[in-house]
């Protein structure tokens, strides 16, 4: 079995977002970059499949030189090889999906795993777009995955519950928190990863068809007020305020 794991480098969730001088992109100063948290579940799942039934795991990222850090980490955790598709990072989800599809098309991957969303653009679109471009099955926001002979069974989170999706391989599966508990890299893994090479490929990105023309910080919330007194009085005051001032109850 051959598994491709697509990983995205994203700002750490504790990062404060600042808008760059161009008014439409993220100011990269002071941003700590990490592997997408949902991508970590995707990678862990691939490594577990490899350990359970044997598989070749290829880690892939689209981006500049800094994305090599994500791939180095994937190698340390157990990916067999790593590929960096060098793009300018300006593409939309469709452009990224097209780049990955062009790379993966003739490589015979049985399974493509990635996070159900990056935590940047938050479009949650790359996985399903990749599935469509490759003409394969998809299952998104997956908390449980079972593989059969050329088939899969995946539990997908939906409103107020979950649903079981069954389909044929190859497939694109996007991971949700709960799928597994990602491991930490071992010292041995980290040392071994240093010796591996990351394959770098120049990839041509089609121009984005969904373009971010402006990026702005959310408006400041109006100042609130504190409710004083004993708990019972606070509770009474709050409900009254929600009813009379906010008119939400």
């Amino acid at each position, binding site marked *: 079995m051959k598994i491709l794991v697509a990983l995205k480098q994203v*700002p750490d*969730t*504790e*990062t*404060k*977002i600042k808008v760059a001088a161009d008014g*439409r992109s*993220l100011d990269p100063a002071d941003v700590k970059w990490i592997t997408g*948290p949902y991508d970590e579940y995707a990678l862990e799942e691939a490594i577990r499949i490899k350990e359970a039934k044997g598989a070749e795991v290829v880690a892939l990222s689209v981006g500049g030189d800094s994305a090599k850090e994500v791939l180095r980490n994937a190698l340390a955790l157990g990916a067999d090889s790593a590929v960096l598709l060098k793009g300018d990072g300006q593409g*939309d989800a*469709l452009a990224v*999906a097209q780049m990955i599809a062009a790379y993966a098309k003739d490589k015979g991957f049985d399974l493509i795993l990635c996070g159900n969303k990056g*935590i*940047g*653009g*938050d*479009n949650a*679109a790359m996985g*399903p*777009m990749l599935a*469509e471009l490759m003409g394969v099955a*998809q299952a*998104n*926001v997956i*908390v449980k995955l079972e593989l059969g002979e050329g088939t899969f*069974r995946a539990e997908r989170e*939906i*409103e*107020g*519950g*979950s*649903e*079981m*999706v069954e389909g*044929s391989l190859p497939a694109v599966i996007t991971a949700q*928190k709960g799928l597994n508990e990602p491991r930490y890299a071992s010292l041995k893994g980290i040392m071994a990863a240093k010796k591996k090479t990351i394959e770098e490929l120049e990839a041509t990105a089609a121009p*984005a*068809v*969904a*373009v*971010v*023309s402006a*990026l*702005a*910080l*959310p408006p400041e*919330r109006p100042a*609130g007020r*504190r*409710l004083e007194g004993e*708990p*019972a009085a*606070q*509770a*009474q005051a*709050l409900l009254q305020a*929600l*009813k009379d001032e*906010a008119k939400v*109850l």
Partner: protein
Amino acid sequence: MILVFCELKDGQIRKPSAEALSEGRRLADASGKKLGALFAGASCAGSAEAAKYGADVILAAEGASLASYSSDAFAQLVADAVKAKGATVLLAAATAMGKDVAPRAAARMGAGYASDVTGLAMADGKLQAVRPVYAGKAFATTTFTSAVQVATTRPNVFPLAEKAGAGAAESLAAPAGSFKAIVKEILAKAGGKVDLTEANVIVSGGRGMKDGANFKILEDLADALGGVVGASRAAVDAGWGLPHSMQVGQTGKVVSPTLYIACGISGAIQHIAGMSGSKFIVAINKDPEAPIFKLASYGIVGDLFEVVPELTKAAKAMGIGKG
């Protein structure tokens, strides 16, 4: 035409779909376009309701092959309908199904896609979308260069607007059934409660709850207010047995209720990112310096184990959440 992919539940249009239709009508009026509503399923009974939200045309694909949701079949159906009707804008609600089918259909059409939008406008016949990025830490304005433009609307953001439309019914052929993936069964349907992303009132607990069992008092308050219970990442990751589906934040659900009551939540950046779109925020925390108070419309500095039961008692006494 502006085409809206709609979902039915128990023979009625789901509220997030009705919101998307309402917004679609507004955009259609602003740009002199027609509004179409698209339904798919074993039965589309109930689809006529779309006329109430201004649909000029109601397209229904009915057939046994559409009884269960299949992402590849539905994406193909949606893309074919867009093409057949010459639609330039495709909308769907940003629900589990909408977010599954819309990007796949967009890729099929080579169309630009904006997910979870909170604002839409038409400028020179083109769609313009405003959407939260970095889980709401910033807002991006998205414009499109593709002929067809696709967006999913965030539930609870766009107001429902009734405006009678012609509602001319047309039927579409259901695809023949050989799908790459299909839903086989629906599991663990929680007792009729709405999802966090669609809830009007959310009562959320954080590290200050001290234990999973203590969430009972939040359940009681949520029940009294007609709301649902959420949790911070700290609470979900604490090993208290809380499911991750409860998690609100950048790596959980991004919510936009009318009322969000944060109990024992300090207000980490990644949590705030997930709930700052709430209309009114109440913070209950014993630490007066907790960052959550900076966001709160109403703040209560106090012991949540005393305040929350008092709130429940008072809400019941006032008969809130019953009407």
